């Protein structure tokens, strides 16, 4: 099979009717969720709308103004009309300066006097016009990013992705530049542990974090500017990614889009299963954030790789495939074209077993074949990494080989010290040097290899697809939320009204108004 980027991968014979059925079932799974999403908004969605209007500062104690504004509206039971509306309402005859807007929102009575019809119409028209102008400014920034990328060109696929995670954005910059010089195509700034559970986006440049660096708009700006500079020096565009996940998915998507990030991790299932975030909340947030990514041409990465870091990678391979179909459907419903849907998976089968390469190859090729237009994101071994860094390095090389042969799109490089600490500078260097060797050495082998008909790889891929189909039948029959409740993904069960953040979900009222959503839905 030839991929859109020109690479060839071995042909994998699959039953097309099965694949078609998987897609139809995934659409059936996501349809009722979309209905739910369309009936609700969340505090984070409303905060995003206010950020669009330029409310991106924090008060003296560091609380973001958007949190103060939206909390005030929610306390008064007014959020069902949308924060944009109330912003317009208090703007009449007052200064537009954000801190003053917050004060006036906080002073609203529980039942503000309704406006005359003409005034109401004019207010909405003004808000729409202002939103349009801000979206145009955002799209200008996106165009600037894409122009630089087109001018400089990008590295060969798979794009090689490494992480920095010092906790200090300025140290992150130094390490990101060094990684780019050593050949990295994508820099991911890992977030501070459990930032996903904060119901606000921290403000400003940060120099302290636990196990990572806080995702803030200012940190995004600092890193993207440094990488622009480094990209120009290297004459090769270096991408930046971060996490639009957790309780602030939509806000982070917006801040990242504004600061010209290229990619974002974005997966409601990850938050539900691994961070115990309420499913209604995060499914609403995911849809909105994916619409932002579609608007700003940002590649999303989904988190199926995480399933097999908890459940057994060999036994749970089909859950990855089933979830990818669901994620693809959610992404399409949010307006994302295939080229922006970076479905995730991983090389994680226990290396102590036999014939693991046949199974890893089958899985990687299956994902590649099922989603030919998507920039598939391949994650390295983590779960079975050892303190023996020499063994771990050899283990990573196997993943590099599978990635090369199966035409992966974005490859997170394994670090030989994975089980020990955040990557040292030399760990990244060695990983980049070695993966470059593998890519060079295996350049044409994807086109040369043919799988034995009825052999181990082909059988395994078809078995996995059949099991994924069976799982999707069950999920479609039960509904996604009940399926999650029964622990069908990653062996983890969550309930519809459990988890964090449910209080931030608000049914939209009949007069709900969200000009950003209108623009994104009618593109």
């Amino acid at each position, binding site marked *: 099979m030839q991929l859109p980027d020109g690479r060839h991968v071995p042909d994998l014979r699959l039953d097309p009717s099965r694949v078609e059925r998987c897609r139809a079932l995934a659409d059936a799974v996501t349809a009722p969720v979309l209905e739910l999403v369309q009936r609700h908004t969340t505090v984070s969605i409303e905060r995003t709308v206010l950020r669009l209007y330029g409310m991106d500062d924090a008060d003296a104690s560091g609380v973001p103004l958007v949190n103060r504004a939206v909390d005030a509206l929610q306390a008064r039971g007014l959020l069902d009309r949308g924060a944009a509306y109330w912003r317009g309402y208090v703007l009449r005859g007052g200064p537009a300066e954000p801190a003053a807007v917050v004060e006036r929102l906080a002073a609203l009575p529980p039942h503000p006097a309704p406006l005359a019809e003409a005034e109401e119409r004019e207010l909405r028209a003004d808000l729409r016009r202002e939103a349009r102008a801000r979206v145009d400014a955002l799209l200008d920034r996106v165009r600037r990013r894409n122009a630089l990328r087109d001018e400089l060109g990008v590295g060969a696929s798979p794009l090689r992705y490494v992480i920095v995670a010092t906790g200090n954005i300025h140290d992150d910059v130094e390490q990101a530049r060094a990684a780019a010089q050593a050949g990295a195509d994508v820099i991911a700034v890992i977030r501070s542990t*459990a930032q996903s559970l904060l119901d606000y986006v921290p403000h400003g440049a940060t120099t302290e974090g636990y196990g990572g660096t806080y995702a803030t708009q200012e940190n995004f700006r600092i890193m993207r500017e440094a990488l622009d500079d480094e990209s120009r020096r290297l004459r090769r565009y270096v991408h930046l990614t971060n996490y639009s996940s957790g309780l602030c998915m939509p806000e982070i998507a917006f801040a990242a889009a504004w600061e010209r990030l290229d990619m974002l991790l974005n997966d409601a299932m990850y938050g539900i299963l691994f961070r115990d975030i309420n499913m209604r909340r995060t499914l609403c947030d995911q849809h909105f954030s994916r619409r932002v990514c579609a608007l700003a041409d940002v590649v999303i990465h989904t988190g199926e790789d995480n399933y097999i870091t908890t459940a057994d990678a060999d036994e749970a391979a089909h859950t990855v495939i089933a979830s990818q179909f669901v994620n693809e459907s959610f992404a399409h419903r949010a307006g994302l074209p295939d080229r922006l849907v970076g479905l995730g998976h991983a090389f994680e089968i226990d290396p102590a077993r036999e014939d693991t390469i046949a199974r890893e190859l089958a899985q990687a090729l299956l994902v590649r074949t099922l989603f030919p237009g998507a920039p598939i994101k391949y994650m390295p071994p983590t779960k079975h990494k050892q303190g023996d860094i020499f063994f771990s390095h050899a283990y990573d090389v196997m993943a590099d080989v599978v990635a090369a042969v199966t035409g992966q799109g974005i490859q997170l490089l394994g670090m030989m010290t994975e089980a020990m600490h955040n990557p040292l*500078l030399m760990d990244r260097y060695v990983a980049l040097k070695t993966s470059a060797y593998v890519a060079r050495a295996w350049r044409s082998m994807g086109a040369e290899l043919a799988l034995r008909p009825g052999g181990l790889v082909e059988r395994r891929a078809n078995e996995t697809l059949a099991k994924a189909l069976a799982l999707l039948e069950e999920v479609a029959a039960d509904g996604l939320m009940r399926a999650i409740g029964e622990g069908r993904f990653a062996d983890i069960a969550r309930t519809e009204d459990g988890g964090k953040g449910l209080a931030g979900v608000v049914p939209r009222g009949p007069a709900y108004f969200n000009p950003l959503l209108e623009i994104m839905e009618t593109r």
Partner: protein
Amino acid sequence: MTVGGEPGQVVRPYGDRRDDGVVQLSFVLPVPADERARAAAAEVARRMGLEQVQIAAMEPAADRYTFFVVYGRTSAAVDYGALQVAERPVRRKGFDELNALALREVGRRIVVLGACTGSDAHAVGIDAIMNMKGFAGDPGLERYPCLDARNLGAQVENAALARLCAERRADAVLVSQVVTQRDVHKENARRLVEELERLGIRKEITAILGGPRIDHRLALELGYDAGFGPGTRPSEVATFIVGAVLRRMGKELH
């Protein structure tokens, strides 16, 4: 030579010949790769006490960073028998091993509640220990089939937490304290123990304290059964809990 710690037995690294003292190491220096960098790397190794230093690899890892692989011989030698080895707490058990052992020996799921108590809103620590995802590749307590673990999140009142411990007949309670201004963490931590005593369940429950400024000794002083500091893995806590429950049943964790 006999195995084990014979008095007077001196050991040194063994590369190619006994007692040759050969070690390999790698590091990065934040300078461009040139002869001065090579000399600097060799000097670093010599100052570490290595002799016959060989720079086996010098590669530019980035514009201003150079990667080295270095070999050398150390004269360091250790009297193996005379070493004073500190007694270790219970060895951390593997995930499957601990689950199998606990389900077999305890015969039911162990109920664990966790929270950040009082005014502390920093759930980073309790989440790292409790959440399914865990920390540093070590799965969190929610993931253990032998545990019925529930993370109550941040800003949980001490009295409410103690009440819940009684209602759910919890075997263990985990308290995380991150904020330490004016010793607020100590006062807050003590209050939970007082509440547990007031409800008469202190002896039936293992109380565990954790946080960046917590150590085992401080936790004991505050009336807890154990304290865990920064870098603690969930499996260490899980092993401790299973051990404590078994001790209350008159059994030992081996």
